[in-house]
């Protein structure tokens, strides 16, 4: 547990999930784990917000889920990106790019 862990800005979790799933189908735990790893433990996704977000995304049609077999004879729910989700991700990434460079400009002054 890293002391520098910060809370996510509202709405960014969804983009992070979409971005993570862009690499390939993954289960909920894996998504959380991956976000944590890639952000080098800075971003930690609480499960209480991960699953609602996953279901929200699914209801919006950006991701779909499928039950599949996993190691140890369990069933896991694998999430993957839909075509609409990929588009959404692209536009969100653009937005993010604009926003973050704008913020960087302001903060750099």
């Amino acid at each position, binding site marked *: 547990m890293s002391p520098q862990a910060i809370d996510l800005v509202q709405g960014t979790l969804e983009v992070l999930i979409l971005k993570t799933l862009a690499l390939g189908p993954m289960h909920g*735990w894996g998504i959380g784990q991956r976000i944590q790893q890639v952000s080098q433990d800075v971003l930690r996704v609480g499960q209480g917000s991960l699953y609602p977000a996953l279901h929200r995304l699914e209801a919006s049609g950006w991701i779909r889920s499928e039950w599949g077999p996993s190691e140890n004879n369990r069933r896991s729910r694998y999430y993957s990106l839909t075509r609409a989700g990929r588009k959404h991700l692209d536009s969100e990434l653009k937005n993010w790019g604009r926003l973050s460079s704008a913020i960087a400009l302001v903060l750099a002054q």
Partner: protein
Amino acid sequence: MNWLRDVLRRAQIRLFGDGTIDELDEELRDHIARQVEHNIAKGMTIDEARRQATIEFGGVEQAREEVREQRQVVVFETLSHDVRYALRGLRRSPAFAMATILTFAIGIGATTAVFSVVDRILFRSLPYRDAWQLVSIGVVAPVEPQEFMLGYSYYEWQDHQTPFTAITSWTGVNTCDLTENNALRLSCASVEANFLPTFGVTPLLGRNFSADEDRPNAPKVALISYGLWSSRFGRDPSIINRTISIDGNPVRVIGVLDNYFQLPTLDTADILAPEGIDPASQRTANPGRVRWAFARLKPGITIAQANAAMEPLFQQMLETVPPQFRKEVHLRVRSLRDRQMHDARLAAWILLVAVISVLLIACANVASLLLARAAGRQREMAVRSALGASRARLIRQTLIESLLLALIATTVGCIIAAVLIRIFVVVAPEGIPFLANAHIDTRVILFAVFASLLCGTLFGVAPALQRPNAESLAGHSNLAVPHSKLRQILVMTQIAVSLMLLAGAGLLLRSLWNLQSQPLGMHTNRLVTSAIDLGTERYPKPEQQMAFFLQLESRLRKMPGVNAVGLSDSLPPGGWRHDQIYAGIRVEGKPLPAEGTGGVIVWRWVTPDYFRALGIPIVRGRPFREDDRDSSDHFIIVSQSFAQRAFRGEDPIGRRLQPGLEGPWYTIVGVAAEVKNSGLSGESEPEYYRLRRNRAEDWQHSARLTVQTAIASATTEQWIRSQVALLDPTLPVESETMTQRVSKLADRPRFEAALLGLFASIGVLLAAMGIYGVIAFLVTQRTPEIGLRMAVGATRRDILWLFGMQGFRMIAVGGVIGVLLALAGLRALSSFLFGVRAADPLSFLIVCLLLIAVATLAIWIPARKATQVEPMQALRNE
């Protein structure tokens, strides 16, 4: 197809939530398990790993709740909450709930029942391939109401016609016997080889017969009906190629017809056999055999085009018709459905319109009730709105309540419909096609559900669309005003529609009254009639037949109290009788009519007592005498209209007729008064009576017995039965009184009048409820105003007047619209009316008065309540 799956999945999530809670649990368990494994991999002990994982997860229950929130299960929870709330609301105002549900249920029940009955007549497609292409073709001429064809011209038409892909015919149904162990009386239809293919019907088993098997001396083959196959042969598939015996002849069964097969004329047939007619001999025969022809239109050809295309062939055929008859022969091509349903179709439409009118009135009432309820609940809605209920929620709440009402009403309505159909089937006279098979099927239920949902949604939501405002909280209502305007319009519509219904029912009732009270030209009191059929098997010779009937006559005459015993072959006023064209009668000293058939002439075989038994007066000359029966001469009595037709005022007594253009001459001995002879509503035809002498040639195997007595009819019927039994105990006797016989003829109009009367009464009752509701509502709404008016000096009469005028304005406007509607719409009834015009002023007047009386009562009751308002109390309410 991934996108499709996604869409479905999303719809599923929105509608039903994301699978089950179990799935979510499984997912969360999987998550924790992975976390535990991860922790162990990092070097924790199992217990520690598990503890950490659970802590990190942060509470399964919370995650579950949040996901559930996402999944919109909420919709369903609030839905069930809304339903419970609506039910509670309905239970709190049982009068409103009962009134709405009953009104609704009656409307739906009546509509559903009638729709079930008319469905087969009007809408259901006939059980043939592309049934809309099928037509009935032929010529119409006096005597035979249905279009028919004669042998010679039929083959000409078949060869040279252009508008049809196929043309086929049959020669009708005859009785035949299955002469095997347990002999069975069957009905056999004779059809052409291309009959089934033309209708697009294939046998269930086996095959249709070929053209070769339809030749005169071909070995006999037949198809049997599904009914016969089941009842007689136990659905044994080996029936094919088995030989059965029909009327003593071996017949090979080559096919079994499907269960749904029906003949185009709706006759029933157990056996379908080739006609075995030689076309070559028919082509030269004139006129050849009577047959009924059907054809299949080529694609894109309309019935009118087919009619035009057949015209040249028809003209050619006319050449073979004696010139004087040509004017009365016409070509007819009409759809098979028209041929099957005759006048049932129009009756069915009228019934359907009537019942939909009732549904309309019922819907208007329901709407009115819902509007009133909405107005009464303004305060409640305002409170809920102020407490934070969203507008959508309020609309949904109202919608759910009205849908709930509709649902309950549909259930009750279906029960009412089932009962009504039972009653129809029992009460209805014969001759309404498919009535016995009428039942509520899925389509009909869907119709009812659709109708009620439409009604409920439309009127349930309308009031909710208006946003409750804060003012309602204070109890000042300004919403009531537009609502009550709408309700008044609804009431006017109800009055207009129910006036039209009432007028229709009134016309039918008057017509029925006319039918039943018209002079028949004979007595019906204490007159018993019996039909006796000796059959040709046991009484093959006319001598035996005559001997039986004469013996029976002399036995019956000896009975005490018997005044007259008549024997004839048919009876007025309706049913089968001999008829012929006037041009087929030679009148001594008169030329045959140069042109035209001269119309239909009715005739019967009678004994002398026939006139006494039926009380038919002889107005000129003398009746038949007993000693005429032994004469070798032929005697005849003609009706007044016949005498007028043939002799134009000359004295007919002693003149002679030759009824068949050849054969013996008959001497006219008397002129009888007119008797109704073409049913109750038909125009009576001229008639003559041949004397049945004590000679075998004048007798047949069946006769109608008429016994006029001074004693009770039941006793007479018993006597007749016992006397017949003494002569031949195996003979069946069907007896009824003449009164019953006549009454049976009016069954159909009575049924129609009763149905329309029933619907009209329901309509008026509902309309009255509507008026009552509106006025009562206005009175409640305006109670403070009444108090104020009275406080400043208005008398009770002024108040009564105030509300009375409001009510009468609705009645006047609705009534005028109703009369106009009725004048326009009731013309469709014309062909059902007897002795009364569709625009009968008296009926309209009575109907209007009746409606005004009912409406006045409906106004008066609540308006009087308004006058009993205590001014002080009313004002304090403010």
